[in-house]
């Protein structure tokens, strides 16, 4: 049941029948609904991407030298810490509507020969709210480095 079909809360008081409709301008405007739902979906995508990056970051494959881990941390630490940090405000909501996948970035150049650099680039895309691009890059990353961060899962 959609909210527009309800006139009251109704979810916890099944005995309460809908009352007369409020004036039309008292209903949540469609533009507001779209904006909120878009933000909600993007928040979920944000955390899914963050989780994938976290997994890659925290579970490097066996045999990687210690230096590689340190470099990885240095490369993406700032972005990833920001992504994974304070749960009180984990999503860049202020930017949620400000960008789309066509937004140009200053960080388009990425060295795909270096997984650490590439992951850092993807983290930056997520931070910028460019989720389509980040997901596309992650898929490409997985094709190039199928075992990276996935061992012992």
């Amino acid at each position, binding site marked *: *049941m*959609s*909210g*527009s079909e*309800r*006139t*009251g*809360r*109704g*979810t*916890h*008081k099944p*005995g*309460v*029948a*809908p*009352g*007369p409709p*409020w004036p039309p*301008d*008292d*209903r*949540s*405007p469609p*533009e*507001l*609904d779209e*904006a*909120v*739902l878009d*933000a*909600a*979906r993007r*928040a*979920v995508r944000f*955390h*899914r991407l963050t989780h994938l990056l976290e997994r890659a970051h925290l579970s490097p494959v066996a045999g990687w030298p210690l230096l590689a881990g340190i470099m990885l941390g240095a490369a993406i630490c700032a972005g990833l810490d920001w992504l994974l940090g304070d*749960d*009180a*405000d*984990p*999503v860049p*909501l202020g930017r*949620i509507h400000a960008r789309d996948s066509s937004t140009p970035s200053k960080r388009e150049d990425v060295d795909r020969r270096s997984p650490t650099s590439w992951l850092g680039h993807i983290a930056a895309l997520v931070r910028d709210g460019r989720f389509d691009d980040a997901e596309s890059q992650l898929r490409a990353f997985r094709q190039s480095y199928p075992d990276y961060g996935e061992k012992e899962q």
Partner: protein
Amino acid sequence: MDELSDESLMRRYADGDARAFETLFGRHKDALYRFVRRQCGDAETAFELAHDIWLKLIAARRRFRPSARFTTYLFTLARNRMIDDYRSWGRSLPATGDPIDVEDLPTRDDDGPEARADVRSLALVQALPPDQREIVLLYVEGLGMAEIGAIADLPAETARSRLRRALAILRRQLEGSAP
């Protein structure tokens, strides 16, 4: 999904189920917007405030604990956001109306839908004093006195008393405007 409680939906959303949020939002979007719209007076401000309230809920989804009902949580967020907004602009909620003491009108949590609909149909709610208006607006959305008290940071009995006074004003005005 429709049969799940609000609290279950919120937990699902926190775990990454965007459809759970869509269901939850569908249940409450109009009620929240009405609450905001009728408090702040103009549609543009209501749009901005309601948008911000929902974003706050999205941001706080992992901190939501189902010890309180979802509606209590949501409307408390809304109330606090509106108070912050008015403080930031150095103004107070529009205050009109003419409070009177009438304590003899029974109001119970189990008032039927007709009683709530009677109030809902009135266009006079916005003329109430702010402290009574918010109680009435929560009441017509189906919230109980304990929940309303929690949202407005009042003992339930105080909330009930304010509701009685507000309903008395509304009924008096309605009778006065009857042909």
